[in-house]
């Protein structure tokens, strides 16, 4: 068994780690690869379990391709740990993790207050950052600008034409906005993408906040001509077929969307600037919120402050029970999670780049490791 940093008992480590998290402030400044030299090191006992352990995962389909990339390299580093990811949706990930039918529940959304109170031993472990692009199908029109409140008006049927004054005001440089009907496309399945999209609408529009609100499914207002689609690839497919559409699409399929000829919206952030989802703007949003991340890591990255911050960003979570009945499974979980956020291992730029995720910024990593250290068995 390899022991990182200090060979302290896990419970003690967890206590110390919790203290670090509770103190708040930007204590850690180094990347995870340099964990042994962080000022206040978090001791995470990791290593190859003494017998084969299979870590079952269910949940978010956005997270699934990322986890699938990890299966083989994880096995190469730790022969006794088998990662078995499967989809099913964020809600299933959370409920399966609570029920204990899987060891890891993947979710785009963090636990609600009520769920967290009911399941105090369920940890929210962020392992990567994802974001969401707003796409549109208006051939010949590039660099369209939209804001969260205008999107809310579109999805409520208040703004129905692409040359509506509300859109024209945001786009003083675009003089040829067509008088075409806007076709809002939304997800029909329960989705973390719907969760973060409606979170932005709720954050920027009081009418939306007091109306449909936010969630993995919401009761959408009826908009004549609107369309529904299943899954992110379905969103691309439907929007591609429908001139005049607007759709919210997870960044992991954004490359496909752009190849299919969809345009990417410049989205107005809280500071009033118009930004696209790039490595830089996503990281800016995470860093802007890093200082206020709570000890339990349940945090929204929606509509973050900062001149460069992209407004629709989220943590990709793995839900894990802190109390495991089997010490070997606990060891395997700590090992996998530590490995998964290590930029030289699981969170390599190749793995992240394949699904357009962004690595956890160094400001957050020590807190995540503190959470991982709490897993004991």
């Amino acid at each position, binding site marked *: 068994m390899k022991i990182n940093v200090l060979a302290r008992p896990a419970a003690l480590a967890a206590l110390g780690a919790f203290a670090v998290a509770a103190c708040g402030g930007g204590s850690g400044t180094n990347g995870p690869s340099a964990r042994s030299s962080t000022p206040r090191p978090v001791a995470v006992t990791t290593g190859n379990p003494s017998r084969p352990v299979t870590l079952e995962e269910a949940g978010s389909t956005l997270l699934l391709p990322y986890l699938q990339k990890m299966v083989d390299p994880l096995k190469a580093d730790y022969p006794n740990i088998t990662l078995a990811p499967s989809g099913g949706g964020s809600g*299933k990930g959370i409920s399966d993790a609570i029920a204990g039918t899987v060891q890891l529940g993947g979710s785009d959304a963090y636990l609600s207050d*009520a769920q967290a109170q009911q399941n105090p031993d369920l940890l929210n472990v962020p392992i990567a950052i994802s974001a969401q692009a707003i796409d549109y199908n208006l051939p010949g029109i590039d660099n369209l600008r939209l804001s969260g409140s205008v999107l809310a008006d579109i999805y409520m049927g208040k703004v129905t034409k692409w040359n509506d004054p509300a859109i024209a005001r945001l786009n003083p440089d675009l003089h040829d906005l067509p008088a075409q009907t806007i076709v809002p496309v939304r997800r029909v399945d*329960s989705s973390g993408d719907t969760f973060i999209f409606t979170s932005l609408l709720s954050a920027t529009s009081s009418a939306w906040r007091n109306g449909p*609100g936010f*969630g993995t*499914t919401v009761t959408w207002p*009826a908009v004549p001509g609107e369309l529904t689609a299943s899954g992110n690839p379905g969103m691309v497919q439907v929007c591609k*077929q429908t001139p005049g559409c607007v759709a919210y699409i997870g960044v992991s399929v954004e490359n496909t969307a752009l190849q299919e000829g969809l345009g990417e919206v410049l989205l107005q952030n809280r500071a009033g600037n118009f930004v696209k989802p790039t490595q830089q703007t996503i990281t800016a949003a995470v860093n802007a919120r890093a200082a206020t991340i709570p000890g339990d890591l349940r945090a929204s990255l929606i509509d973050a402050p900062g001149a460069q911050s992209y407004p629709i960003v989220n943590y990709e979570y793995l839900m894990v029970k802190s109390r495991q009945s089997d010490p070997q499974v606990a060891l395997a979980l700590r090992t996998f999670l530590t490995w998964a956020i290590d930029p030289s291992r699981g969170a390599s730029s190749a793995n992240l780049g394949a699904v357009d995720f962004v690595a956890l910024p160094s400001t957050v990593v020590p807190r995540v490791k503190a959470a991982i250290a709490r897993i004991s068995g």
Partner: protein
Amino acid sequence: MARPEEHTTRSRDRVGTPWAGEGAGPRAPRPAAYPGRVRARLTGRSAVEHGLRALCLAAALAPLLMLLVVTATLLVSALPAIRFSGLDFFTGRVFSFGNLYGGTPTVHHGVAAPHNASYGAAPLIVGTLLTSVIALVVAVPIAVGGALVLVERIPRRLQGGLSIFLELLAGIPSVVFGLWALLVLGPLLAQHVYPTLARLGVLVPFLRGPVGNGQGLLTASLMLAVMIVPIVAATTRDLLRTVPVLHKEAALALGMTRFEAVRVVTLPFVRNGIAAAAILGWARALGETMAVLMVSGNALNIFPYNLYAPTTTIAATIAAMLDSALTDATGMGVSALAEAGLALLTITLLTNWIGRQIARRTAGVPLPVGRGF
């Protein structure tokens, strides 16, 4: 073939002949303390008989038990939602899990649900009934007509080949129909057919108004119709083959045309069975989930304002919202979906029962299909 052989072996065994017969080789012949028939009743055969009897009883009770268990389970999980919503479940127009991430809980009739939660299923119930009934109205004439042509008009040697297509159509997974309707049928209808239909709206109010983009009530219904045509047609075809040839020939001999023969002899003979086949198709349309989810437009809180408007059904809603319901810490989301499931179960049983009553009323000649209950 095997049974009589076994029987003879037994009877030889029974009379206690030294040669036990090929089938009973390893078995030692029992002493014949009783006359053969009595012994058989008291020992070996009765055990088998009892076993078989128990097995048959279990098999006969299984469907009933399963229905009871499913209903009871649904009822138990639906109870909180039933208490929360009361009659609002049937009249309410908003089906929403509410704010799962904050706000003060909404309390109704002593049951707490998330902030702003509302489980009004009226649009779902209406959507379920509308899509399935429209599908049935479209599908039954096509299916019966097709089956008639197949049996009455097409040469026997071609019938087999054409029948295979009917069976293949019935075997296509529903999600494939959904995909086809989403990508091909819906856009096609919205661009080329619905605008023409909408012009007829001058006469028929339900045809008026915006035609949408091909996701909605009519697209879902037409897709369901395509799905249930093979079910109804295959059953009708088998029924038509049971119509006695002598009756048909008698009709023709009386100088009737083929159409008259079909109308006067064939159809009355199978009317009862066709009604039963239609009920089968209806049940399929009521319960169809994924395909409807893909093309219905998933409108949870509006009644369709015209034939092209987005709608949704109970089954599609359960599939779409279960994942979200699982994140509801109060458990009310799952409970509300269970109540919706109970409603669907009730609707299916009711339509089945009503259909059977109609079938019984209109029954001319008793037939093995479509009777019972």
